[in-house]
């Protein structure tokens, strides 16, 4: 299909920017070979663009602006050099920060799980103590009587979201509704020393 002049003039502009396919370039060349008006258009566009781009046609920013940019660049470069004198240090710092965040998250999550586990173990110890009618001495030196241990165990299990019946073979109690005994507030196995079981 023969190209019209309107299309050809668009293609002349697109060719300058390398946005014309090779088949369109061939079509344009064929049109230009036959069309003096489009050849004249192409030459004038090129001449006008080159005249507009001539150094005399474009003013320059003042020396003060250039000096301000240089100053800012220098300050930024110095700032970087103070914190990261060796380029690799910047990446090392990023890597260290990433490792710190990942490890911190893992440790926090593990300690949470450990805490839950510790509470369950404590509850079992208390329940066994209750079954055997033992007295268990807490770290504060207070002697917990066997009867009270069952209530403590029930409390702790309810606090951890376990049904008393399904976790331990002890009688359910309504101790969960009562305020938590002081001995359990630390919620740690260290609060009860097994070696001191009587």
């Amino acid at each position: 299909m023969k190209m019209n002049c309107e299309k050809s003039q668009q293609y002349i502009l697109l060719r300058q920017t390398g946005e014309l396919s090779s088949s369109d370039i061939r079509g344009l060349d064929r049109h230009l070979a036959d069309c003096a008006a489009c050849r004249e258009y192409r030459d004038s566009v090129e001449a006008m663009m080159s005249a507009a781009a001539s150094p005399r046609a474009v003013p320059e920013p003042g020396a003060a602006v250039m000096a301000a940019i240089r100053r800012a660049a220098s300050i930024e470069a110095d700032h970087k050099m103070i914190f990261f004198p060796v380029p690799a240090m910047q990446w090392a710092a990023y890597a260290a920060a990433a490792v710190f965040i990942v490890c911190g998250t893992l440790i926090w999550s593990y300690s949470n799980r450990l805490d839950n586990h510790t509470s369950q173990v404590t509850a079992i110890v208390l329940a066994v103590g209750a079954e055997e009618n033992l007295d268990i001495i807490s770290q504060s030196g207070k002697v917990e009587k066997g009867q009270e241990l069952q209530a403590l165990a029930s409390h702790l299990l309810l606090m951890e979201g376990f049904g008393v019946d399904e976790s331990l073979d002890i009688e359910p109690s309504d101790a969960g509704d009562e305020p938590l005994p002081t001995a359990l507030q630390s919620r740690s196995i260290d609060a009860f020393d097994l070696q001191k079981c009587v």
Partner: protein
Amino acid sequence: MEGSDRQLLYRYRRGNLEALEALVERYKRPLFAVLINMTQRQHEAEEIFQEVWLRVIRKQANYKHGNFCGWLIRIARNVFIDRTRRRKPDASLDAECAEGLTLVQVIPDNEPAPADRIAARDLGLKVAEAVKTLPPDQREVFMMRVHADLSFREIARMQKVSINTALARMQYALGKLRTILGEEYKALNNGN
């Protein structure tokens, strides 16, 4: 200093100040040409020019690849748009401001003054003066194409229009320049 734009930016990131200076020098003219046509004021163009390079210095990591000059002009447009939005519309063009004249009558038009016409003997200056009279969208396309050497695809993306619209704006700009330049246009064609 030799090297691609990316290499120069990389060297500056590694503390080489001269690399950034080389980049500024390389794009000083195209960027400033676009700015001066965007703002029509030397002082404002200089302020934006400085702001653009400060952003480049601070946000150099944002430049990944592609046309560095295009990136500069994108930043420049954003700075210009921010400044225009911040500026309060504090005057009406039709309101009388002094001696019974409206602002439209007071603000100098884009036509070169007679003294400038005499001074503008250089063909480049004549084209530059004629470019100032183009509508902003067409002027921007012309400047981005001529000075920043951006493709029509890049210009279209920046102006948020289709490539055909960008192309049409360039064609309108060239047509108007042809009319404005008149005899000079013929001289251009004759290679003078």
